[in-house]
């Protein structure tokens, strides 16, 4: 007889494992299917290991800027292999942690690749090709996503990388051309530049970081260019030839000019696509639109008893969005009170480059397009005592409010540790705080987050420190 579960989750990333734990907390009999390592991309090949490498890059940056503080260092050596080792050990530790959490919550972990056989029936093919069948009232797809391919650019794991390869280089490349300037592309461009690689960034859209506010993207671009990163926007790779020791790349700009260069490595970071293949979706009538599963506000797909959360359910493809949808989806099906649909516009986005970027809600352009009367404030970190004291006074905080309701429509931050500060605006938004409410908050001094306060005051037309 096949095992019968209340909830079966396919994939154990930040969507899947959270969904499984939440289901178990509701007292539902739960299993999670994983074909690779527990924790998914986030833990093993995404958020976490890149942060470890970026931490190394920050150290490189600090070492390069000792002088103003009176230090000098000589004989500093760098071993890329050791940094990669550190990054992998962090991932390994967290992945083991997920195994522990599954056990603690009484969740069965099924190893293998899942496929929907019928409504409520999943077949799992294990590594040894053996197939087992499982039944479940609720099947949650949390299969994630993978790098999207670019025409004419075939990742080979050696000269042409995806983020998988960029996380475990055998040596530091002398030069690197990054295709795509979303969070992944920008983070790798920044960290490899800090470690000493000559970096070129190619973006097909008119601005880098296309989803971010134009002012933020412009600021990052200037900072990057100051550091020697070459940037081509409105440009694409028209030709790519992999040689034995180098890659020859032709970049075509919007005006038709072609810029040819030879680089050590190429990183393809032109977005991601959902893992929707070989799941039996089509046979079951699960609708897929442009590579992502179509879902409603409760994460239900078009097929009975099948749900999708996280990357596979579409943008924004972020770990915290996946985890949030996991809880939302499970709470809803479990009948919990006060479940609210997710407003995807207000999922915060963070890019851990130098400088960091964090944002929430509408860009100024999108806010203007709503036709609402706006109050916009911006505060520059050049006027922030704390930012000056730590020698990182490049950046700003921009806030956009609806002038009539006082509702926070957008917050855009660039500068040191802004990824830790954006939650403040998230809380404000979630509690429906108005600009006036935020103005009344006492912000501790001296902190970087005081800039958030000043930005709100600026939006209200009464900044103090500028």
């Amino acid at each position, binding site marked *: 007889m096949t095992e019968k579960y*209340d909830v079966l989750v396919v994939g154990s990333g930040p969507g899947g494992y959270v969904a499984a734990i939440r289901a178990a907390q*509701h*007292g*539902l009999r739960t299993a999670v299917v994983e074909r690779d390592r527990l924790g998914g991309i986030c833990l093993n090949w995404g958020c976490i290991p890149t942060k470890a490498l970026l931490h190394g890059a920050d150290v490189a940056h600090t070492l390069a800027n000792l002088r103003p503080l009176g230090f000098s260092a000589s004989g500093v050596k760098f071993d890329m292999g050791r940094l990669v080792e550190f990054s992998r050990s962090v991932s390994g530790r967290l992945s083991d942690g997920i195994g522990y959490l599954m056990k603690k919550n009484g969740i069965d972990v099924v190893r293998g690749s899942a496929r929907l056989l019928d*409504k*409520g029936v999943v077949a799992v093919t294990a590594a040894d090709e053996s197939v087992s069948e499982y039944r479940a*009232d*609720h099947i949650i797809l949390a299969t994630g996503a993978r790098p999207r391919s670019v025409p004419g650019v075939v990742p080979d794991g050696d000269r042409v990388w995806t983020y998988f390869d960029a996380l475990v280089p055998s040596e530091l490349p002398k030069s690197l051309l990054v295709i795509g300037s979303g969070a992944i592309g920008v983070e790798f461009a920044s960290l490899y530049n800090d470690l000493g690689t000559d970096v070129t960034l190619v973006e097909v859209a008119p601005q880098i970081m296309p989803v971010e506010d134009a002012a933020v993207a412009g600021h990052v671009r200037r900072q990057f260019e100051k550091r020697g990163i070459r940037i081509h926007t409105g440009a694409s790779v028209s030709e790519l030839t992999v040689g034995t020791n180098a890659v020859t790349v032709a970049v075509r700009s919007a005006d038709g000019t072609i810029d040819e260069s030879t680089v050590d490595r190429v990183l393809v970071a032109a977005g991601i696509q959902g893992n929707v293949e070989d799941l039996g979706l089509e046979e*079951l*009538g*699960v*609708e897929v639109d442009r590579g992502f599963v179509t879902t409603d506000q409760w994460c239900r797909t*078009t*097929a*009975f*008893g099948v749900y999708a959360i996280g990357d596979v359910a579409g943008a924004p493809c972020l770990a915290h969005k996946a985890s949030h949808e996991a809880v939302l989806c499970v709470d809803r*099906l*479990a*009948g*919990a*009170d006060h479940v609210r649909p997710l407003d995807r516009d207000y999922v915060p986005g963070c890019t851990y480059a130098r400088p960091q970027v964090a944002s929430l809600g509408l860009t100024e352009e999108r806010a203007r397009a709503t036709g609402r009367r706006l109050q916009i404030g911006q505060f520059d970190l050049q006027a922030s005592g704390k930012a000056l004291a730590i020698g990182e006074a490049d950046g700003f905080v921009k806030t956009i409010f609806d002038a009539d309701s006082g509702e926070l429509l957008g917050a855009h931050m660039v500068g040191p540790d802004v990824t830790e500060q954006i939650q403040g605006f998230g809380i404000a938004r979630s509690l429906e705080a108005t600009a006036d409410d935020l103005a009344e908050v006492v912000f501790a001094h001296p902190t970087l987050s005081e800039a958030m306060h000043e930005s709100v005051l600026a939006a209200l037309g009464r900044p103090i420190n500028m």
Partner: protein
Amino acid sequence: MSEIKLIEVPKWGLSMEEGTVAEWLVEEGASFSKGDLICEIETSKIANQLEAPFDGVLRRVVAKAGETLPVGAVLAVSAEAAVSDAEIEEFLAGIGADQVPAPAESGRSPGGQPTVAQPDLESSPPAPAAHESVPATGAATGSRPRPGATIVPDALRGRTNGDVFATPHARRLADELSIDLARVTGTGREGRISVADLHDSIRAAGGTVAPPQSPTRSGVPGRSFEDDTAVPATPVARRLAASLGINLHDCRATGSRGRVCEADVREAERRFRLQPEVVAAPEPAAEAEFETIPFTAMRRAIGQRLQESKRSAPHFRLTADLQIDDLLALRTKINATVPAVKLSVNDFVVKACAAALRKVPDVNVQFDEATQSVLRYASADISVAVALPSGLITPIVRGADGKTLAEISGEVQSLVTKAKTGKLTADEFQGGTFTVSNLGMFDVREFDAIINPPQGAILAVGAGQERPVVVDGQVVARTMLTVTLSCDHRVIDGALGATFLRELRRFVESPALMLV
């Protein structure tokens, strides 16, 4: 209001009679605000969290986790820090202790219970013997002060003037009783007068002290105090009750000839928690090993309701074999064609029952024992029995006769999951006009079910199986489903039940009828 307040077992839903404390969420000594979650209470069918009805400090947990108490029983005491532990003790002892009212269904309402909100006042102290010589018959005590009344001796009477060091409680009580606090000796720190000192003085001067009635108690009776000598009880029960200080009025009477027996006193003892439960030491040898699993609230509800049904509703059963090959073919076709729908055989059965009930509304009934009448319902609200690890619950598909198969199927799945997570609301499982119980997934061929009171009938559904049947003189294989209808003969007669089954067969064997 009084600084001593009680937190009591709430009443969630009409059928809730008692609740089991699952877990305390606030620790003794901790303060809480109105709306904070105080503890988790499991009722017969749901687990829910109790919100604090006011701000306070949890001074005393009366009901420990795992204990079952009737609605209105005291769970905990809240009081300000200024109130001493001794005052809380006294308060608890006064309201009839760490305990609970007699269950309402006991039928013996404690008539002698002091019901006055204000303490009875007598201007002169009666002879001390007066409140001891309660008539043995338990008859009314006439004009004499009730044993529960507070009697203030003249020696203490007066109005408190000027500076007297007393607790706010004591000061208020003294005002109420017209006592001059200057005549009372304080034993608190620096001679501060507490409520206990006040009571001691009253007693010392020859008066009596009533068991206080809490102004914050919501009309819940405390323990009985009146004479219980006339209550029929076994000798063992009577002696045990006396030694435990339990009034026989507070015991159920499940013994022979309606007498209170030993088990009833033990049960009352547990309810009042006069003693911690004594766990019998395991016998050293030769005893068969077993595990004692206390009834959960849900088990108890199942037991009570179904025992009541089986005992009072005269059941008769009608069994029919239904051919479901067409139904299965239709099901396969629908499931293969419509992604958003997954119909089970049971979904079809629920729909067919609803359709048949619409044709034979006299089966869509409840029996109202109180008025000796039949309640016939216009809408077929089908209860669907769901097995849980902890028991059984019957969430309801309301108005199933007006819903499509897809709607019924989606609703049933949602209700089943909510049943498992304990998130069903009272409205989702209380009521219903007819029940479907299906054990087909366990390959049970056929069974009969006990009627879900106060409904009039229940359909027990077995497994669809290929069986040899005779068609036109030939033995052929057909998929058959055996169903058994249990009816309450008080409201449904044999021919009526049979008519319902005939309609049910029509829908099940020609499933297209359910789609139009």
